[in-house]
């Protein structure tokens, strides 16, 4: 019963955050002299109004589900994996390089091989941070941020120096049998970039749920996240758990990158910035409060906002930055969910006045007792 309530509570917070975000977006549009209703309608039709739009939304959500899961796994172990973007880039590079290296291999070997290459590359990249954290206590926040830059510039150098033809800024396109986009799906969705990667993402959701809830490793990861010292005292190998959590996290992020490489772009480009799926994956995971099913919904919501948002500036004169503000506002309210929780509790107080009052007075009482004791001790000393 209690667990159920918590889940509904989280859902409630996410939904309220989204609504407040849209509301802030509407207010900003009003202040800038644009029509929010019209723009939200064109956002909506731009996101679900045609098979093409739906295909694009799902394609946008596909890697976000994977990076979101990656963040959630690391977060359960108490780590803030900011390196998702770099790990995704490593996965993107590895999957495309693998596909380009064996242009004549049959599809049933090449495609799984390329996907696996992406997952392994992502895992190795985050494994570095996991290793440093487990054995030397190096903050994973700092190491993953720095590894992001290493990944970005190393990848660009490899693409430019080894994969690209001549002066180009992009690798050749991967062989047909390694592509996740197929003519069937293109036909189905009016030439959108929708690809089969969505199945991989959904499979990953089930695997991660099973891993975290039904296996010993999942239990250990959660235990380490709650209290590292207690877990060690209980006989768990915390070093092994930390590295495992980071490996799984990076593996999922690498898969997300492979989706971009094999599905969306079908090659690798010289990126001017880290791929946005890394940081958006963090937001997706936070919005979903770490629940695997919630991550699917949050990733689709991001897809709706991003793809639908492109339609706003096409259908009206509103600048596209407005959509970015709406998305940022949604994330802001998720981050500031304490405010929403607080307001929720306030509104509940009249019906259930007892517990909060008791909770508030108890610490106060404790402090008072301690103060009295201190005073007494002081007197004794004199």
């Amino acid at each position, binding site marked *: 019963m209690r667990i159920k309530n918590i889940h509904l509570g989280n859902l409630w917070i996410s939904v309220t955050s989204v*609504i407040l975000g849209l509301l802030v977006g509407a207010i900003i549009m009003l202040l800038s002299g644009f029509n929010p209703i019209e723009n939200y309608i064109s956002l909506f039709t731009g996101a679900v109004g045609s098979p093409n739009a739906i295909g694009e939304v799902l394609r946008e959500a596909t890697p976000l589900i994977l990076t979101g899961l990656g963040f959630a796994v690391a977060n359960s172990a108490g780590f803030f994996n900011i390196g998702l973007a770099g790990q995704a880039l490593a996965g993107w590079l590895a999957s495309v390089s693998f596909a380009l290296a064996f242009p004549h291999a049959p599809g049933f070997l090449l495609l799984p091989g390329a996907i696996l290459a992406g997952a392994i590359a992502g895992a190795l990249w985050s494994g570095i941070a996991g290793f440093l954290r487990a054995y030397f206590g190096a903050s994973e926040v700092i190491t993953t941020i720095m590894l992001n830059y290493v990944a970005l510039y190393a990848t660009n150098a490899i693409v430019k120096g080894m994969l690209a033809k001549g002066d180009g800024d992009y690798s050749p396109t991967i062989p047909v049998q390694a592509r996740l986009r197929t003519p069937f799906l293109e036909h189905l969705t009016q030439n959108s970039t929708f690809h089969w990667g969505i199945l991989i993402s959904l499979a990953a959701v089930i695997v991660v749920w099973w891993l975290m809830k039904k296996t010993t490793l999942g239990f250990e990861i959660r235990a380490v996240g709650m209290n590292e010292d207690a877990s060690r005292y209980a006989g768990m190998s915390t070093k092994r758990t930390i590295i495992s959590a980071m490996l799984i996290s990076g593996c999922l992020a690498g898969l997300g990158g492979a989706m971009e490489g094999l599905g969306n772009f079908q090659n690798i480009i*010289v990126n001017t910035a880290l791929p946005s799926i890394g940081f958006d994956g963090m937001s997706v995971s936070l919005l979903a409060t770490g629940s695997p099913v919630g991550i699917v919904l949050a990733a689709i919501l991001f897809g709706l906002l991003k793809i639908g948002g492109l339609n706003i*500036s096409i259908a009206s004169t509103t600048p596209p930055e407005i959509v970015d503000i709406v998305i940022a506002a949604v994330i802001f309210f998720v981050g500031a969910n304490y405010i929403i929780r607080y307001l929720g509790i306030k509104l509940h107080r009249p019906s259930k006045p007892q517990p909060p009052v008791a909770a508030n007075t108890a610490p106060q009482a404790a402090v008072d007792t301690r103060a009295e004791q201190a005073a007494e001790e002081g007197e004794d000393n004199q």
Partner: protein
Amino acid sequence: MKISHKFGLAAAIAVMGLSLVACGSKGSSSSASNKTVKYSAALVTDGGGVDDKSFNQSGWEGLEAWGKKNGLKKGVGGYNYAQSNSDADFTPNINKLIQAKYKTIFGIGYKLESAITNAAKANPKTNFVIIDDVINRKNVASVTFKDNEGAFLAGVAAAKTTKTKKVGFIGGQHGAVIDRFEAGFRQGVAAVDKNISVDVKYANDFSKPDVGQALANAMYNNNEDVIYQAAGGTGMGVFSAAKNQIKKKKVWVIGVDRDQTAEGKYSGGNLTLTSTVKGVDIAVEKLADDVKNNDFPGGKTITYGLKEKGVKLVKGNLDAAAWKAVQDYQQQIIDGKIKVAEKPSQLKK
């Protein structure tokens, strides 16, 4: 009980939201529902907005000028732009424009090459234009610019202006296009005086003004007094660095793609020496006109150089002697007496 309370609250907030939104809709006008005109046109940016004071903005100004000339409105059926926030937005943006039935779609920048190629394959009835790259398809017109010729003149201007015999070049990202700028600039400087040193630095990004500012500060501190920036949004940082340095000593910036005189204004005058102007606007306007006149050059590559007035150097704040030299060299390039290199590797050491 508890649960229903929460949902009640959420519903209340949602209703509040709706009513607020509803209030807002009253005052503002509904969108202009233009009739679908035969020759509507739109462009897709290569990252960043149409206010980048550079490449995308120039393309958009051309399209705006064309739209106004033809009495069209911004929006579906007229002229419009789609902003790409990342490279993943290229294809969705192009598809959205196709679905909105724009007849001609401009891809501003070489980065859109593969997205335009795929879209052109799938949509043979739509006209596409790619700027700064070449696509060989019947429904795609390619536009390239001889940026190296404009950059050569910038080199001449810098060489004629520098007092310290040291000038700088800040590029956005290595690649075929910026290579042309670097090669032309270095050749132009050397044509005037072989002893002037050219310090070449790359920001590796077109949208990081902070990096541009740091690079420029280092150059000015190294006594380089003229910097040519070919770095898009990153170049804005070069202007901020110059505005700080001008308090101590005389420094100049050479602008790129658009006439960037306005960016060089400071309390004591203007520090934009001159700008190489890339006629993206001219090309966009011309091609949109061609479609209107049923004369779309599909499958062809149009090259704009000094001769075609597709690239040029503005007079800006050049002194008479420098301007004279620029014009001399310009004539020699147009006459084919000087051939400007396209790659730094082609330059004589």
